[in-house]
């Protein structure tokens, strides 16, 4: 027994040993393959670092170039090239005539409406947005870009909006010129069953601004992909995004939702038919219905009834508002309404539409606001979205809101963005950088004509790094009697001649006097080239401000360079009796405007005021000789989406208000106030809403009116009213 046991043990030990060797031997190469930390010392050395004297790469193509140039000049070559690239291979270089744009600036002409032609509401909105924009010209000779008055939005032959005989109608246009420099808007093209992207007429060399365009048909840097928007999409203004605050942690009730039609067969049906695999009825809720079209019963499959029942259990709006991610699968066409709906709802779109050229892809970095999935990897989508870090969700979600409000919330914004993209191509070297398009306040408010350098704008200091703030703001500020002044600019807006030189007070900073050409109110905000500092202190002739007050306002402005920072605060309110906006100069607990009679703001707003606002508003201001300050506040708040900043207690800032002067002022005019009410409402209607925002606080010096020795206070004079 003992011996047996011993043998058994010895035997098993031997077996063990053999096994060890065996296993060890077998495992060797496998182990070697799996752990690859120091690859250079292993057998499976990937790429031997060949030490042969190898040929060197010679990139100088001098001989090539010389030979190439021998026969034809590069210009002829280019012409030959470009004439070959037409139609589907059109590019700006080959199908666009830059000369008119360089001659007259970027002007857009809209054909006059033709008799008997019906224009859909959406297309009418597009046309009136162009006509209301600063790009519009009524003279085709001035134009760089032409837009048809023929409705090309809906090119689905089965649609009631479909315009027939477009081909001949277009060919008969006197300025058509094979579509050169024409822009054609389109939302729907093709029809059941194949939904081609053909418009049903020869577009020649025209550019397309088209929704649901595929990367295949999209001619990069020539066409513009626009979003699909509905008939109800507002012309101007538009709703704000739904995000009210950044919730932390950023997860909502649902992780991923979708609710929409399911196409049982045909183009675009695959993805939606497969959604049920991913649906879990808990945090991933993907609902489809077969109920659409007249004869859905005929085609229905085994899952239809179950799906339809599930579909009716959930409310779309509720899901939209309570989900972190929203699935945007392709429909029959590549783009769908879901995209803009999700964007507005701050529900991060998960795009499943292979080959879709996303809206404004030329300028928008969609990876910042969406998750772009691959239809082929549908089953991985839940894992993918779950793996996204909460910080990233937070930023994706904020970016959806920024993009929605900057480029999508109204037809006007979509149209202007389209035009600005084309303008950027024309401007070329002076166009916006990607940073300007993709960060607040967006490309429509950052005009490249002002400067292509981001540091010249008040918005990008933080993104560009701290160095900028200091440099920019103090660049031309020299220590003088008023420590922060570098120059004084007097705008002489009076019909009387200028006073003689010796009558001007002596100052230690340069005083520059400009005589307004037209002597109108708006010339106060003309971007004079003589203004070289970023900060502009705007004053009325009768404003009384002490140097301390100016100094303090300036230091505050340095912290808020994108806002108006100043003294005279005013407020707006909604007058529900008269159903209109009201203006008040009474002392109230809040304010929404700081008048430019005594305020600091960034010089960029001069440029924006003069170049962004339409002439209608500016001429209204000029005729009334009033409201220019209100308009400036509207503009700045529309850009920043923030209120202005009032500094210190001071409210009266004019001699006339203090009753010390008998001179007539425009402020003494009784009509003055009524006009301002009217202005408010005119402005609000142009902006498509009320951009002004109330604030309940003002900024005072830290020791303002504190019961401490006056000697300790830096801004002593401010306390004396």
């Amino acid at each position, binding site marked *: 027994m003992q011996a047996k046991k011993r043998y058994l043990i010895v035997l098993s*030990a031997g077996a063990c040993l053999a096994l060890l060797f065996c296993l060890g031997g077998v495992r060797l190469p496998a182990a070697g393959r799996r752990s690859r930390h120091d690859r250079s010392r*292993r*057998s499976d050395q990937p790429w031997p670092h*060949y030490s042969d004297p190898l040929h060197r790469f010679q990139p100088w193509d001098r001989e*090539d170039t010389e030979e190439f140039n021998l026969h034809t000049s590069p210009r002829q070559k280019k012409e030959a090239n470009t004439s070959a690239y037409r139609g589907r291979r059109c590019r700006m270089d080959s199908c666009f005539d830059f000369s008119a744009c360089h001659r007259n600036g970027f002007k857009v002409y809209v054909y006059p409406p033709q008799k008997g032609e019906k224009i859909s509401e959406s297309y009418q909105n597009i046309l009136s947005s162009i006509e209301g924009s600063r790009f519009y010209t009524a003279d085709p000779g001035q134009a760089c870009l032409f837009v048809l008055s023929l409705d090309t939005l809906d090119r689905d032959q089965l649609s009631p909006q479909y315009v027939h005989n477009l081909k001949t109608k277009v060919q008969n246009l006197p300025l058509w010129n094979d579509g050169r420099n024409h822009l054609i808007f389109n939302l729907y093209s093709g029809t059941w069953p194949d939904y081609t992207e053909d418009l049903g007429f020869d577009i020649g060399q025209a550019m397309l601004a088209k929704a649901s365009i595929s990367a295949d048909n999209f001619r990069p840097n020539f066409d513009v992909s626009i979003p699909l928007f509905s008939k109800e999409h507002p012309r101007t203004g538009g709703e704000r995004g739904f995000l009210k605050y950044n919730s932390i942690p950023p997860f909502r009730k649902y992780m991923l939702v979708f609710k929409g039609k399911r196409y049982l067969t045909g183009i675009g049906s695959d993805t939606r038919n497969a959604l049920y695999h991913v649906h879990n009825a808990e945090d991933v809720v993907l609902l489809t219905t077969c109920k659409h079209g007249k004869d859905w019963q005929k085609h229905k499959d085994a899952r239809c009834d179950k799906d339809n029942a599930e579909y009716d259990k959930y409310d779309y709006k509720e899901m939209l508002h309570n989900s972190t991610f929203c699935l945007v699968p392709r429909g029959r066409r590549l783009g769908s309404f879901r995209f803009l709906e999700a964007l507005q709802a701050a529900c991060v779109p998960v795009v499943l539409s292979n080959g879709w050229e996303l809206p404004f892809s030329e300028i928008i970095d969609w990876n910042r606001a969406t998750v772009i999935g691959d239809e082929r990897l549908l089953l991985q989508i839940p894992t993918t979205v779950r793996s996204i870090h909460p910080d990233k969700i937070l930023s994706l979600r904020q970016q959806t809101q920024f993009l929605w409000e900057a480029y999508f919330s109204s037809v006007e914004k979509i149209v202007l963005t389209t035009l600005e993209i084309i303008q950027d191509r024309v401007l070329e070297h002076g166009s916006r950088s990607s940073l300007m398009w993709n960060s607040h306040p967006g490309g429509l408010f950052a005009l490249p004509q002002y400067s292509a350098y981001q540091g010249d704008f008040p918005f990008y200091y933080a993104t560009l*790094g701290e160095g900028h703030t200091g440099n920019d703001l103090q660049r031309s500020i020299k220590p003088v009697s008023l420590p922060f002044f570098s120059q004084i600019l007097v705008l002489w807006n009076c019909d009387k001649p200028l006073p003689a030189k010796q009558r001007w007070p002596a100052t230690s900073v340069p005083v520059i006097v400009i005589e307004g050409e037209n002597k109108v109110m708006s010339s106060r905000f003309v971007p004079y080239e003589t203004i070289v500092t970023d900060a502009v202190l705007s004053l009325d002739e009768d404003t009384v401000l002490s140097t301390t007050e100016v100094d303090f306002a300036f230091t505050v402005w340095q912290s808020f360079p994108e806002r108006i920072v100043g003294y005279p605060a005013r407020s707006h309110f909604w007058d529900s009796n008269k159903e209109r906006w009201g203006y008040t100069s009474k002392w109230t607990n809040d304010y929404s405007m700081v008048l430019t009679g005594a305020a600091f703001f960034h010089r960029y707003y001069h440029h924006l005021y003069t170049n962004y606002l339409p002439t209608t508003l500016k001429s209204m201001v000029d005729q009334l000789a009033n409201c220019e300050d209100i308009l400036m506040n509207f503009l700045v708040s529309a850009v920043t989406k923030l209120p202005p900043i009032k500094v210190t207690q001071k409210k009266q800032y004019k001699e006339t208000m203090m009753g010390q002067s008998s001179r007539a002022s425009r402020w003494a005019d009784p009509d003055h106030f009524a006009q301002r009410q009217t202005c408010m409402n005119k402005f609000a209607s142009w902006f498509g809403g009320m951009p002004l925002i109330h604030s309940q606080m003002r900024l005072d010096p*830290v020791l303002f009116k504190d019961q401490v020795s006056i000697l*300790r206070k830096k801004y002593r004079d401010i306390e004396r009213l």
Partner: protein
Amino acid sequence: MCASGKYNSRGPALIPRMKIKHRIYYITLFSVVLLGLVATGMFQFWPHSIESTADWTLDKRSIHDAPLIRLPVSSPIPERGDLSCRMHTCFDVYRCGYNPKNRIKVYIYPLQRFADELGVPISSTGLSREYNDLLSAISDSDFYTDDVTRACLFIPSIDVLNQNSLRIRETAQALAMLPRWDKGMNHLLFNMLPGGPPDYNTALDVPRDRALLAGGGFSTWTYRQGYDISIPVYSPLSADVELPERQPGPRRYFILSSQTAIHREYRAELERLKEENGEALLLLDKCSNLSQGAASARKRCYKGQVYDYPQILQESSFCVVLRGARLGQATLSDVLQAGCVPVILADSYILPFSEVLDWKRASVVIPEEKLSEMYTILKSIPHRQVEEMQRQARWFWDAYFSSMKAVGLTTLQIINDRIYPYAARTYEQWNNPPVVKWSSVNSPLFLPLIPPRAPGFTAVVLTYDRVESLFRVITEISKVPSLAKLLVVWNNQNKSPPEESLWPKVSVPLKVVRTKENKLSNRFFPYDEIETEAVLAIDDDIIMLTSDELQFGYEVWREFPDRLVGYPGRLHLWDHEMGKWKYESEWTNEVSMVLTGAAFYHKYFNYLYTYKMPGDIKNWVDAHMNCEDIAMNFLVANITGKAPIKVTPRKKFKCPECTAIDGLSLDQTHMVERSECINKFASVFGTMPLKVVEHRADPVLYKDDFPEKLKSFPNIGSL
């Protein structure tokens, strides 16, 4: 392995019960097994060391050892590249699949030499040094896999960098011979000099089926957007010449043209510009007296004067990069290396890596037609922008142009970003030079939002055992209209909180959280109980704040939800004598911190403080039981780049009887410790993020001669 493991584990248990004789047996047996184990271990290393020596010989292996493959004349030729190829049509994404690291795997074919039936090689140069460098770099990177079955991307070892040296048809046949070719699916070719005489196609002429092309010199007509990658034409001077980085600023020349093969029409145009603008332009050409060859590549001449190339590029603000026979020019790389702003005149050229790089920040693109207007166009660019472009140009070279490794890995990263777009590198990561990355601020709460008033705020009271004072604070806070919830963080482990019945009756929910350890960081823990975005952190002895002051503070926070909005303001100062930072609690004209003894802030910062605080600051604070508030100020200022906001004149918070300054603040050691904190934190952050401001927030009608009852916040204390 498992068997022996079992045996071994039983062994020691058996031994005590056995006789000595048996024990010896077992010990021998045991040692034999052990020996076996050791031997196995040895074997684990042995073959390895053998292999690694073999490796060394491999390293010295010559390319001539690579197997020679003869291509039959009839061997198949792939189709020409399909212009409609996109990632979703011509790329097999299943090979990449889901991958927790979000990184594609790249396989490189082993080197083979190809020749036709007569033995003439398919390429006149064979493997070039640059392509060898490129493949080595990829094989050393994290992208590499040697397992062909796990690979998502395949890179042939056939060098097609320069089409001039290739036999087109045979190269194509060689590609088709690759074992995994499969119509070129997921194959990546690197080509820098495409096309050849007479028409110089802008993409590689070798038929390649669906293979991806990383090409230098694409035009808009051959570039398949979203599929191909436009890469730079590598300049060998990058490796040969070291140009030190120059500070951005004005240079001796304004515009420099250094290319030698410029068409005479363009050269005439440049000459005309030179005549008009004189010294500002330097127009160089090849030196006629120098013989051809490498030396001539390093010299340029103007009217008999010889200049060193590329050094001379550093002497100009702008450098012209004109198209030649090809659109992509190696000069671009030299120009960037010199920190000179490239002026690119090559119509329809797709700039290198334009999918991710923002060239508007580093270059000026001018249509060829406008060559004559170049001077005026460049003059209109502001100086600061030029400086920025100079810096940016050099950074692009450093990061993406400087070596074949940089070119190769950037290309792979771009493909990687397409396959895992949700994990893609951001615009800032691609485009911001390190100095900007370091100093720029991308606030996580970047959207300008004024949150609605309705959700209110949650007051978080940190307490230890001052129950009486705590109850007073609770009673006071509960009068604030926007208070949504009270959360008491009970930091005393030795004592239980008072019974429920003893707590003051308040109209909002009151929760008590008991902590496991008495740590200061407990105050900033993101408790699930905090359901509002706004958090009011308040000490259990802050009894002076009125309800109006608190409500007003909340209103101010709504206007600045990304900042700390609080009542006790403090300042940091630079102590010139000591050469370090100093903490200041006197009543000064400036504020750079608000203490979290009474401050509103966004709940997000709780997460940041708890999970993302840099270095050992959190532990340091808990160990010293001090400075959690300073740490919070550093954290918020660092991530938002913004100053805190002090609200209302209130400066006394604790007891009415106290004199001007709180008792604690008088304590000298306290002040020293707080100063130490600032210095410690500044060194951990590597910078001083705090911002100094001279303002505080007051209600609009504060101190106004106006009926008190009409004011929203009448009860704003004086001090």
